[in-house]
């Protein structure tokens, strides 16, 4: 007999862990901005005048175009109520929205053999749930309900906003790192700081900024995995039926169509299971936790 964990406790623990990881991300971002300023001029003011606006501008643009970018990358189309399968999908989404106490999200369909689904929209008012035609065909209503509950939970927990912001921050850190890299290449860095000592600190700062995107990406993946568990448990709480999603995940595990996966790799974390990685190995570089562990946790509820 496995130990039963209260769904509410799982939800609380996941939320707490997300806060820690987000804090780490914020620290990393601030450190990179300060380090850039130090490298270029030895002066923190410079980083506030130049690096910070560029980084924040980048984040704002990424954030504002995210929803349409995600939908067009997935080649998603609105669900057609004339087709029974898609009508039933709309019905299941309406039901789950009521269970979650949220406005009814828009329903999209992605033509793909794979069983998959994702949610987007930065806040519950503009939520979108997209399910593949493969999922509509291969999952029964109970399993489909589990998958929709998982996506609804991403919306309810503001995961989409979190994912969008963290993707943007990771991008901004990468941008900073690239700027530094190219300016080192063209010999621009350090020009303003002639005569100042402490080369070791300078070298460390440069090394840090160059390695920062890797740290940022790992931190981001850690957040993403946390949120998957959280969406699984919130979803189980909504349907009061963890078995539905557990069965759906089992089907996803067995599902190996020949077709190539579609969509954009950047948005892989938004899917219920990573469309680009069929073997769910547990590692630091996964967007999702291993599928077996997810099934085990669902069945222990």
């Amino acid at each position, binding site marked *: 007999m496995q130990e039963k964990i209260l769904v509410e406790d799982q939800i609380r623990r996941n939320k707490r862990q997300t806060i820690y990881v987000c804090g780490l991300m914020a620290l990393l971002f601030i450190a990179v901005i300060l380090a850039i300023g130090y490298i270029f001029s030895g002066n923190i003011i410079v980083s506030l005048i130049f690096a910070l606006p560029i980084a924040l501008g980048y984040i704002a643009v990424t954030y504002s175009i995210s929803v349409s970018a995600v939908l067009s990358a997935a080649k998603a189309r609105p669900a057609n109520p004339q087709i029974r399968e898609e009508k039933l999908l709309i019905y299941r989404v309406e039901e789950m929205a009521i269970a979650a106490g949220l406005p009814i999200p828009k329903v999209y369909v992605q033509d793909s053999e794979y069983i998959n689904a994702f949610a987007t929209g930065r806040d519950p008012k503009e939520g979108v749930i997209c399910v593949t035609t493969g999922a509509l065909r291969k999952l029964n209503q109970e399993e489909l309900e589990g998958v929709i509950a998982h996506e609804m939970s991403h919306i309810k927990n503001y995961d989409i906003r979190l994912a969008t912001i963290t993707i943007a921050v990771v991008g901004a850190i990468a941008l900073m790192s690239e700027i530094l890299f190219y300016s080192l290449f063209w010999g621009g860095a350090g020009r303003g700081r002639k005569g100042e000592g402490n080369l070791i600190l300078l070298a460390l700062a440069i090394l840090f900024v160059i390695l920062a995107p890797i740290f940022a990406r790992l931190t981001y993946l850690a957040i993403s995995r946390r949120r998957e568990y959280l969406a699984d448990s919130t979803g189980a709480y909504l349907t*009061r039926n963890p078995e539905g999603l557990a069965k759906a995940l089992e089907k996803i595990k067995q599902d190996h169509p020949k077709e190539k996966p579609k969509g954009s790799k950047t948005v892989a974390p938004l899917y219920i299971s990573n469309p680009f990685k069929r073997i769910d190995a547990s590692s630091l570089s996964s967007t999702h936790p291993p599928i077996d562990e997810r099934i085990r946790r669902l069945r222990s509820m």
Partner: protein
Amino acid sequence: MDPIWWILIIIVILVVFFLIIFFGYYNRIIRLENRIDNSWAQIDVQLKRRADLIPNLMETVKGYMKHEREVLENVTKARSALMSAKSPQENINADNMLTGALKTLFAVAENYPDLKANQNFLNLQDELTNTENKIAYSRQHFNDSVLVYNNLVETIPGKWFAGFMNKKTREMLQIPEAAREVPKVKF
């Protein structure tokens, strides 16, 4: 500075502190109450929708199910009980009756291949299942909301503020044993 000033400052800080907490609890209690009322409104909308669908269903089924008078009568009876229900609990009880009657009707419909092939019947069946699930989930959301509200107004210090605002605990909707199962969507 005079010690009297210090005392005054401390009193002002305490009053402000208390007011902030009071406003916080006041707003939370009102917000949760609104959530409960809103969840009930949701249930009510779905119950009405469901009652509206029944005459259509009867019209469609009548031609095929000539020998199933009792089954059809039970559905009609449950519908009128739903229409005349007053309190939330009466509504829910009538709705459960209707769910049972419809379950029998759809089971009996299995014996009528012509009816099962009728597009109108299929659509109505899908839509009735949809409203049934919506009712079940909004009932769940209602009870969840009541639980959160009751927890707030029954624990300290929420209890004190609720007493001051003259707010009492709310009743959850009782769900009879038979209907307690998770709504299983069926084809």
